């Protein structure tokens, strides 16, 4: 259990989560039925009241599910772990899928779970899009799909604070795509999201040939809690 999660739970929830962690540590396969029941057993709600959907800071139940999956993972070989991750995601509701995606940041499974990231990025659920673009995607997702994921955040209103690896992976091609996005918005007489301006500014500092409107770091640009 992380310190952050420890602070978020009441005594009963904390005790219940410790019990669940002990249970999956001794019998990892139990996670199949304990993972869906986590919110009911341990607690639920935003970790940050200003981020009710947990786009940047995972919600209480997300963090508890991640803790549970990490505990189960300790005793599994990679093949069994990946099979269970696939099953938890396939049979999970949106909350459970989100927690699986969050957990990928902490699990050593290489690139074999990229299908799940791809599934989340194909949909329109902003909670899944945000969860899919953590450090796992930053490490493993190919450049084309990662850039499109970032652009999708701008389209769907997912704060870029949810996206890991912008400084490392942002490149000229992403700058071109974001500039196209802002051009279209401007042509349509629509507002430019602060995140788009900020991102373009970040990226063009690496590409002086692009003349970006200067921007400041948006309020929601915060350190990601991994």
């Amino acid at each position, binding site marked *: 259990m992380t310190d952050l999660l420890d602070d978020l739970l009441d005594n009963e929830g904390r005790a219940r989560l410790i019990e669940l962690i002990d249970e999956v540590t001794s019998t990892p396969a139990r996670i199949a039925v304990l993972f869906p029941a986590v919110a009911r057993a341990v607690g639920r709600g935003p970790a940050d009241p200003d981020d009710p959907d947990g786009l940047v800071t995972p919600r209480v139940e997300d963090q508890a599910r991640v803790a549970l999956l990490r505990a189960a993972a300790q005793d599994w070989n990679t093949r069994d772990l990946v099979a269970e991750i696939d099953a938890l995601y*396939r049979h999970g509701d*949106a909350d459970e899928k989100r927690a699986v995606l969050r957990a990928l940041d902490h699990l050593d499974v290489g690139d074999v779970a990229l299908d799940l990231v791809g599934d989340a990025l194909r949909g329109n659920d902003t909670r899944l899009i945000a969860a899919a673009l953590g450090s796992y995607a930053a490490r493993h997702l190919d450049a084309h799909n990662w850039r499109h994921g970032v652009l999708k955040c701008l389209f769907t209103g997912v704060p870029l604070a949810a996206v890991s690896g912008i400084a490392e992976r942002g490149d000229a091609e992403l700058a071109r795509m974001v500039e196209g996005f802002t051009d279209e918005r401007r042509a349509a007489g629509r507002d430019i999201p602060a995140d788009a301006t900020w991102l373009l500014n970040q990226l063009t500092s690496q590409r002086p040939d692009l003349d970006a409107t200067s921007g400041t770091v948006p309020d929601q640009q915060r350190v990601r809690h991994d």
Partner: protein
Amino acid sequence: MRIFDPHIHMTSRTTDDYEAMYAAGVRAVTEPAFWLGQPRSSAASFYDYFDGLLGWERFRASQFGIRHHCTIALNPKEANDPRCAEVLDVLPRYLAKDGVVAVGEVGFDSMTDAEEKVFVRQLELAGEHDLPVLVHTPHRDKVEGTRRSLELVAASGLPPERVLIDHLNEVTVGMVAESGCWLGFSIYPDTKMDEHRMVRILADYGLDRMIVNSAADWGRSDPLKTAKTGQAMRDAGFSEDDVDRLLWRNPVAFYGQSGRLLLDPVDVDQTATFEGNSVLRGQRPA
């Protein structure tokens, strides 16, 4: 009048139905997993269906002020199809979820060995997951099917008060009343049971463990039959408290045994989305 329809297949109904149900007093429903009117060809088809019951349909109901719960099971008819057998192994993942208030519909269709085996296994799963059970009784050979269902329930060791035997009529009500199980009646436009026959049964047997549902689905059926039964009760001299007991408190007591009912009023927001999609069809949420 507040109504909990404890058995209705909303996936097959329209938004007009949701509006009419709300206007008639329906504030909560349970949607049992059943068959589609034609066979599923794989287990994956079940998973999409279960996901829909737990996801999109719950969201859709909430858009009309109605709390939606579901029961999950491999239904009796498809228990005979080997292509769907693996569903049994995956059911525990779904039975663990919020909003799943019973194992069901289980039971018999044609009373085959395969049906019995799947029925028994799902009674065990109900015990393992601490959930009540919704038992469908067959259209054909109903008396024998009901009798055998009660035998299997008794043999399972589940407390009878955690089992609801559904689709009863005048010839099956007596044996279920004696068993200690809950008694379910599906009020249909012209088969199974109608509201006036139902009122006579209530006069004979009382209101203990009695449950009435519309069982509305893709067939000819009426999602307002619960409300119409309430009216027939009043016409026959039952009190408002009797109506409330039959149409709200009894189903709440039965499914409440799951510990997973959510009955606080829904804050209706039709601009909300489920996984990025709304019920507004083309009108983007403001």
